[in-house]
């Protein structure tokens, strides 16, 4: 890897380690991956040994290798037993990871968009309770049922430390369970090429202790409307055509909901740290950062206006 992702790689948890499970829905997948890798290596060694024998072995060994017994054992019985065993293990493991009815899981709908994620927290009845984007907050030690959808093309939702990949397919709802053992930040990435800046379509899961999670949830209130010049600029510059800030007149739906954008870990869908500088940079020229994304560069602001706008958005927690 060149230094293409150096900036991102200095932020904690990126690139997400793929063989370091952080919860019960990722552990079996890691085990299966190791079993396949090691098993595959053993089979490869056997095949290479057989090939070596066939080429360079003594007459006696060659005769044995080509005998009917060896063909039945090595060519039929061995693969039949191993592959059947793997199939049964793989299928039962997959089904043990899929949601069982009656699970006491928190529910969240996540909708893949080119090139970001809508996040809708659902209540017990499946009604939308809170809207956010590009970041998911969960309590530790509790399964979270994700209802994965897509608004445009096929994406794939992947938080390597919390679960396997799951495709997001237009017109379908795929379900995925995740659970984190420990509080922390778990990074993710769209794992199905979805055009343009697909490589810059990241995601963040933040796992809190139960108490911290309740605190986080209670603090997610609509904006109080006291936006000052920053909000005026936001509304006057067309930002509200695409973005919602609950508690204000901004109610656009095309882009990420910004009601809590100031409290997010990242900007641009998991790719930039969130601070006043990156916020200003994203607003002024997101096309330089994430080429092809659907937000145009905004070159019309004066320095002071850009700072006021960035400061206002940073204040939205």
């Amino acid at each position, binding site marked *: 890897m060149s230094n293409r992702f*150096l*900036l991102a790689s200095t*932020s904690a948890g990126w690139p997400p380690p793929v063989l370091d499970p952080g919860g019960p829905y990722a552990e079996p997948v890691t085990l299966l991956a190791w079993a396949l890798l090691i098993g595959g290596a053993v089979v490869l060694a056997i095949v290479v040994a057989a090939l070596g024998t066939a080429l360079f072995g003594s007459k006696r060994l060659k005769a044995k290798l080509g005998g009917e017994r060896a063909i039945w054992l090595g060519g039929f019985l061995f693969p039949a037993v191993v592959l059947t065993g793997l199939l049964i293990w793989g299928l039962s493991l997959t089904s043990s990871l899929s949601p069982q009815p009656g699970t006491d899981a928190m529910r969240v709908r996540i909708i893949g968009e080119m090139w970001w994620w809508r996040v809708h927290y659902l209540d017990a009845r499946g009604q939308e309770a809170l809207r956010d984007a590009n970041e998911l907050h969960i309590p530790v030690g509790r399964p979270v049922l994700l209802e994965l959808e897509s608004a445009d093309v096929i994406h794939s939702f992947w938080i390597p430390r919390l679960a396997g990949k799951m495709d997001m397919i237009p017109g379908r709802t795929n379900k995925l369970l995740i659970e984190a053992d420990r509080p922390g930040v778990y990074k993710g990435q769209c794992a199905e090429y979805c055009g343009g800046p697909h490589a810059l379509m990241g995601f963040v899961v933040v796992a809190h202790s139960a108490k911290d999670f309740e605190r986080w949830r209670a603090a997610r209130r609509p904006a109080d409307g006291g936006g000052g010049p920053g909000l005026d600029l936001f509304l006057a510059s067309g930002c509200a055509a695409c973005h919602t800030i609950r508690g204000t007149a901004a109610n656009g739906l095309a882009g990420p909901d910004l009601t809590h954008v100031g409290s997010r870990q990242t900007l641009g869908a998991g790719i930039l740290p969130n601070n*006043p500088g990156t916020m200003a940079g994203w607003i002024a020229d997101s096309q330089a950062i994430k080429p092809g994304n659907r937000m145009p560069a905004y070159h019309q602001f004066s320095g002071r206006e850009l*700072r006021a706008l960035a400061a206002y958005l940073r204040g939205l927690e």
Partner: protein
Amino acid sequence: MAREEVMIAAVGTLLLGACHPAEIAPHDAGAAAIARGRDAARRLGCGACHAMPDSAWPKGRVGPALDGFGDRAMIAGQLPNDPVRLAAFVRDAPALVPGTAMPAIPMRDEDARDIAAWLQSLHEQ
């Protein structure tokens, strides 16, 4: 390597050294501070606005590219480019250049000093 070649190499090194008197860092910025500064600039995402040398992404275009910053006379066309002012500027630009688009960016004192050391170590190739 033959002995003569070693001698020639040694003499050459001395001569070169004489032509370019030991490079004195313009301030007390060791390699460690420069490396820390580069890492801090990446961690804070300075690349969102400024193309940074040795970093292929992101190549922000909102502010000036940072390569050769150590050769520039001025900061933002307004202030002399010295380490103390530069450290103050990277952390709180609007306090020094009121009309700038660059916001004050929360960071530790050490980060500001290290980033200034890194910026002043950048010379035109």
